[in-house]
């Protein structure tokens, strides 16, 4: 059980302010999705949490201990980075063995089992793995590490649809068996939305939203139908996006759906439907 507290974090690269006064608390044993457009500095935030880089200002605390060069705090985290930091000549089985050295709770049997499921050749060297299998090796180490905080940065990079599906299934199974704090940064929002409990959206170096997925989706809906009627319906409402196709229009409304809205939609012969997380994300980060 580990709580991550991010307090007033700023990160500056020369004259560029990458992260601007980020305050965030991540509760233990939840699955967080860290979402943001390209260049939103999601990886910068993850690198700061794991002491890969240093903040310009602020601090990051895990269970009351600052992560800065703190082995005790750092050993609670496993961070699957997008880039491979493993020596290229290292064999997969050696990578597992060394992970066991640094993470004593590393479940070797589980790692071997997953390797078999994914078809990962244990005798191959890191440099011989394709992008997809490189991701699979790192994901297996992350899942088997049994660290109380596991961070995934683009975990399904290069994976085919079957392997992606398998990964999500294994992630949920591993979480159910041994709850932990999981942070996933990905662009494949639609695929991961079923897995996430809470989303954190980062835009221009600031956290613009942190909310349970269920709450977020219940606070928005899509209204669609004849364009003129839709325009009548959304009058005075907070809309985040809209699409028009001929006379047809669909608009995402960022409000809780009331009975009066349902009645009005019926009267105007409009359809009401839920919002997909990805569409909501696009709406929120486009504005």
């Amino acid at each position, binding site marked *: 059980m580990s709580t991550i507290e991010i307090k007033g974090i700023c990160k500056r690269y020369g004259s560029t302010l990458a992260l601007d006064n980020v305050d965030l608390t991540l509760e233990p044993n939840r699955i967080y999705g860290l979402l943001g457009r390209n260049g939103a500095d999601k990886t910068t935030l993850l*690198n700061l949490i*794991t*002491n*890969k*880089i*240093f903040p310009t200002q602020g601090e990051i605390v895990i269970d009351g201990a600052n992560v800065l*060069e*703190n*082995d005790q705090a*750092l*050993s609670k*985290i*496993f*961070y699957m*980075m*997008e*880039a*491979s*930091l*493993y*020596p290229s000549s290292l064999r997969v089985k050696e990578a597992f063995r*060394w*992970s066991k*050295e*640094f*993470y004593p709770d590393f479940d070797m049997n589980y790692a071997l089992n997953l390797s078999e499921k994914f078809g990962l050749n244990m005798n191959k060297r890191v440099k011989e793995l394709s992008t997809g299998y490189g991701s699979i090796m790192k994901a297996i180490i992350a899942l088997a590490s049994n660290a109380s905080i596991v961070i995934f940065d683009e975990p399904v990079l290069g994976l085919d649809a079957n392997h992606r599906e398998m990964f999500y299934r294994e992630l949920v199974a591993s979480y159910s068996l041994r709850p932990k704090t999981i942070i996933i940064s990905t662009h494949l929002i639609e695929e991961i939305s079923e897995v996430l409990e809470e989303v954190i959206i980062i835009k221009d170096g600031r956290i613009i939203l942190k909310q349970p997925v269920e709450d977020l989706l219940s606070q928005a809906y899509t209204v669609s139908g004849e364009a003129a009627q839709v325009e009548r319906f959304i009058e005075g409402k907070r809309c985040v996006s809209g699409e028009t196709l001929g006379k047809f229009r669909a608009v995402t409304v960022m409000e809780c759906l009331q009975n009066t809205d349902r009645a009005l939609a019926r009267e105007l012969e409009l359809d009401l439907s839920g919002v997909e997380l990805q569409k909501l994300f696009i709406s929120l980060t486009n504005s």
Partner: protein
Amino acid sequence: MNRILKVAKWQLRDSRKAILIFYGIVLSVVGLIALTNWLYGSGQGKAGGLDANEVVFCFVFGLNSFTTAFKFTQANNVSRRSLFIGSLLSLTSIAFLLAVISVIFSLVLRSVMPYENMVTQLYRTDAILTSLVWSFALNTFAMFLGWLITMIYYRSNKLQKLLVSLSPAILVFSLVLLARTSIGGMVFNPLIRAIRNALGFADLLNPNPHVAAFSFFVGAACLAALNFSLIRRAPIRE
């Protein structure tokens, strides 16, 4: 402490192949010399200085001991402090191991052919303990120097890397220019005297290898301090 030992273990395990290859080559050369000696006799000459290769190996080993280890320890979320201390342990252990092997080599070679190691050639002593301490000190210094250079490269941007690469040439060129000026002697004489004293040649008739060993250890400690200042805030570069 546990993570420090794991880092040291990783680096020692990682060094095995390089050490085996190095000694494979050294043994081949020694075998060739011994064979030539046996076939044609030693004549008036003496073999020597095989341990100089060991110093070069230590320097090159130091050059290769940072980037891979840094990335690997970062993949396992190990602090830079633990990496530094773990590296100190592993590098000094390897330097000591090579010094021991070097002394054993000298003893074996001396028993089969006329051979002088570097300490004997420079300081006219063949005391085993002196040779061991001197080699250990020099190996450690060479290793830490290589380690420092690779770390400077890692922390530098393109322009800084270029400057670091050119710095030996710039230094030599500056010294040559300085030597031609009227103040050349004022700078060089004390400098040469200081280096000579540090290497134990204050009294040329009775050179002292222990002074040199002490200087190498002090130098290695200074290099280690510089290394720590570079590693403690090193960001990961993907």
